[in-house]
């Protein structure tokens, strides 16, 4: 079905995409951007209708990476779903682990020891730093900077992934958290290595900013492009740095106080324009705040067990009921919704992924802009296809 054939009911409303009429004569050029395209972050397709280079219609097409993650989750035990959550947003597997563990812990009322909570915070914030760094790298790569910022980001990410590997055994598919704690304890050498990496992070962010933040080309490309109004952002369920770049003060870490986030001093950076540049800067500033959290968490890490002794690994059968647990993943609000019927497998296993829902307003942001801007706006949403299509 071509994009101009899709008869979307143009429901009048402030939260609907604007209607852009092509100016001038001539037919629209229909371009299927993707699924094989250098900057669709994997197998994603956008059906564009172009008037010249101006976008007048845009329809995202999903499902090329669909593997019915939720059905898989319903067919296996609670524990066996844990490694599958790594594959959702494969850049930040540890936050996925945490979100799932949090939902299950809510479902069964499981406590988590303090040390495990600290380790979770450390790992989640390291994940956030490396995700934001690489997402900015991808964004600038899409702007055509031949990979230099991406390589700088990856150089830093490499150090963090090395930490993940030495702790969890795997660089990306960490499969680290368990219901009621974590799998392996951190060792003193690991903590020293982490402190060293964390001490080097501000230098990296400074270098990154010197390279990019004041670059005129970047400012010209990003400022005023892909504006997302705060009221639409809230209404469309946009979350994470995208929401905050639109000036909405909403951070699940601050709102839900999950884990032990209320023990740390950190601020939530907010943008005023809601354009690509604000999303970029909010990510940069969030990296700096994450570094602050990391420093505090590494300083205060208490001794103690990392697994609740009451937690069960085998024969885990929650009582009937349901729970929705969510965390502030680097890409936005990541939630798991579980219904238990008392059996060893969840009756319903649902993942609320930020990437998919943040794409709801892709059309709104892109209409009227150029093809080149579409790529940038799409990049600034910061998605991972493993999470969008599940």
């Amino acid at each position: 079905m071509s994009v101009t054939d899709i008869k979307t009911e143009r429901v009048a409303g402030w939260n609907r995409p604007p209607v852009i009429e092509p100016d001038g004569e001539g037919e629209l050029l229909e371009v299927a951007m993707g699924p094989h395209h250098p900057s669709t972050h994997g197998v994603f397709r956008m059906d564009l209708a172009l008037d010249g280079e101006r976008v007048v219609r845009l329809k995202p097409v999903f499902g090329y990476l669909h593997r019915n993650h939720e059905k898989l989750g319903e067919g296996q035990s609670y524990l066996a779903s844990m490694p599958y959550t790594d594959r959702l947003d494969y850049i930040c597997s540890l936050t996925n682990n945490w979100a799932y563990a949090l939902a299950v812990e809510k479902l069964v009322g499981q406590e988590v020891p303090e040390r495990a909570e600290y380790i979770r915070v450390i790992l989640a914030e390291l994940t956030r730093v490396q995700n934001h760094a690489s997402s900015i790298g991808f964004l600038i790569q899409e702007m055509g900077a031949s990979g230099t910022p991406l390589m700088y980001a990856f150089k830093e990410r490499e150090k963090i992934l090395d930490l993940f590997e030495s702790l969890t055994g795997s660089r990306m598919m960490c499969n680290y958290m368990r219901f009621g704690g974590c799998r392996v304890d951190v060792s003193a050498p690991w903590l020293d290595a982490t402190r060293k990496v964390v001490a080097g992070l501000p230098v990296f962010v400074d270098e990154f900013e010197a390279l990019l933040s004041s670059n005129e080309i970047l400012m010209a490309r990003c400022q005023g492009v892909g504006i997302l109004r705060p009221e639409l952002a809230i209404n469309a369920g946009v979350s994470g740095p995208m929401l905050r770049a639109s000036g909405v003060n909403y951070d699940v870490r601050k709102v839900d106080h999950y884990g032990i986030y209320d023990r740390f001093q950190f601020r939530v950076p907010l943008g005023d324009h809601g354009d690509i540049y604000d999303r970029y800067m909010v990510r940069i500033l969030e990296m700096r705040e994450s570094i602050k959290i990391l420093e505090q968490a590494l300083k205060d890490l208490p001794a103690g067990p990392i697994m609740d002794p009451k937690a069960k690994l085998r024969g885990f059968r929650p009582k009937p009921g349901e729970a929705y647990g969510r965390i502030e993943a680097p890409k936005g609000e990541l939630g798991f919704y579980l219904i238990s019927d008392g059996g060893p497998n969840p009756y319903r296993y649902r993942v609320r992924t930020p990437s998919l829902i943040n794409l709801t307003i892709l059309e709104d942001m892109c209409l009227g802009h150029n093809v080149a801007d579409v790529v940038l706006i799409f990049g600034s949403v910061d998605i991972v296809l493993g999470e969008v299509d599940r």
Partner: protein
Amino acid sequence: MAANPFFVNLDQIFVLLRNWLVGFLPVALQPMAGVLLGVIAIVCVFPGLFALTTVFERKGLGRIQNRIGPNRVGPYGLLQPVADGIKSLTKEDIVPLRANAVVHFLAPLVLVVTVFMGFAVLPMGRNMVLVDMDAGLLFFFAMGAATELSVFMAGWSSRNKYSLLGAMRAVAQMISYEVVLLLSSVAVVMITGSLSLPKIVAAQNQYSNGFPHWYIFTPWGLAGFLTYAIAATAETNRSPFDLPEGESELVAGYHTEYSGFKFALFFLGEYLAMFSISGLGTTLFLGGWSAPFSFLTWVPSWFWFFGKVMLSIFVFIWMRGTLPRLRQDQLMNFAWKFVLPFTLLNLLVTALWRFMGDGWQRWVVCTVILVAAYVVMGRLEMRSEHFGRRSYRYAE
């Protein structure tokens, strides 16, 4: 020192070699054979330089990105282009079913041939110019304009939407920047009074206090060089003006549907265009083959020429490693609203320079005018495009 016959001979070695070779032929054939030898030399040297440049570019980009770069094929990866060449030759040559096969086939050839023609008028050393044409500059630009044709041929004949968009972008961009390119060269012509490139070099090949009279060391020359460099980058589709092939948006732009050797030809054409336009820039503003200091004039002139060309290639690579790409409308705005007015102003300043006579006054006046114009126009540009630094607020 300059009179040392060894260095004179070294400087003229290629000319002597040609004369020696041509000497074997009857006199009637000698001019033609001489030109033919020159053509062969150009056709051999520049693709070789292209091969080297691809390695250096990849290594340079690698170093900029804190990587090592290609180092597997041959010592320090120097044989990488050979491997690349073999790969591109053995790849399947895909022609889309609905493509206009003839035009699709001709496009890379047109590109390479026209780009090669530009080298005919470039003086690559003392007495080393293939054709000493009086209107050499004009010939060069005429040939340069033909590359647009080939890009459009490639984009149109591929029957690919990305190719077509890339070709449209390329034509718009190249025509816009052609104007700037020409006008910034006109400044040099105004001062020199000649369109002949060897004469332009000769005008710059003078020294006072050991420093050369290159045009880049004058206010108008520097401004002209900068606008020339911007236009040259756009003309050769290099980052940050690589929109016609903008791989993140248009997959590969006008050469999306090319593979194998045809793609390699496009690649070659792009680099040759880079060499030729750097060569022209060198000739116009950097004193061509003349040495940077009077005590270095014993070094062969062709060394200076190629050294300066490679230096500008390095700057191209450096920019590619740093800068993101502009957007089409911003690119056009930049050309027509910023660079072109500035170039026109520069022409006025050049005229002022010419008629103010020697003395420090013309330095001060020209510099002040150009710097003030740059600052004001730059601020206006930033304001009209609505961008600038921002500050951010935090919520606790």
